[in-house]
């Protein structure tokens, strides 16, 4: 290493000036990194305070996510939904995609189409008679909407269906 480079890194030996790095970042790192037990307790208590607030916010957050829509929406004629077939619809708003399925046994079921894992759109797999999320291979039971394989842990929200005069209606969410 040349003497010139050395003086740039460690400061000039002749004049005693500080190194470039110390002039650019005049932070005493030893004092900066030292955290006493008392400071750590204070910091953790502050964190604890924030966590308690977050917990209360979650408790009151149920007002914003509650699925208690009782809106009635016409989906179409029942004959349009053939056995072992499915149809897509939006309920209760245009931003909420849902899927109605007629199982091979002839039962009508409907669920939110939003996967409970990472919100991909689920699809009906006719061959296997199950609901599948193509993003991460999540699988849901077609009769209950419960997760049976893959990463999802929560059931798909279920839409109540009613058949009136051979017409399909979505009438709310099942708990």
């Amino acid at each position: 290493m040349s003497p010139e480079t050395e003086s740039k890194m460690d400061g000039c030996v002749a004049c005693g000036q500080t190194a470039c790095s110390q002039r650019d970042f005049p932070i005493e790192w030893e004092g900066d990194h030292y955290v006493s037990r008392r400071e750590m307790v204070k910091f953790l208590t502050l964190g604890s305070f924030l966590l308690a607030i977050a917990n209360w916010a979650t408790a009151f957050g149920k007002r914003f996510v509650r699925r208690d829509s009782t809106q009635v929406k016409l989906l179409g004629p029942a004959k349009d939904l053939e056995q072992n077939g499915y149809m897509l619809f939006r309920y209760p708003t245009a931003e909420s995609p849902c899927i109605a399925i007629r199982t091979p046994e002839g039962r009508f079921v409907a669920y939110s189409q939003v996967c409970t894992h990472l919100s991909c759109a689920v699809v009906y797999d006719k061959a296997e008679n199950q609901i599948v999320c193509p993003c991460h291979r999540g699988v849901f039971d077609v009769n209950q909407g419960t997760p049976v394989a893959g990463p999802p842990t929560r059931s798909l929200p279920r839409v109540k269906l009613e058949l009136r005069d051979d017409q399909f209606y979505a009438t709310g969410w099942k708990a």
Partner: protein
Amino acid sequence: MSLRTQGTTLFTAILVLVATTVVLQLWLLTFSMEALLRGHYSTLIPAAIASTVLLAINFGLLRYVFRFDREAQRNLER
């Protein structure tokens, strides 16, 4: 045992306790979020109350640390 050694042991123990309660609060928060998304609303308020109790314990311990320091300072001045 000197006051300094006692203080070091005590504060290490308090630090471990506070850290444990914070981890518990973190767990309660993730549990609450999961319950919220599942629609199990009945568990949300008890979880928030439990979190507040843990916060009160932490505040109590912090208050004890301050009081211990104050008393140690007073003893040194005598």
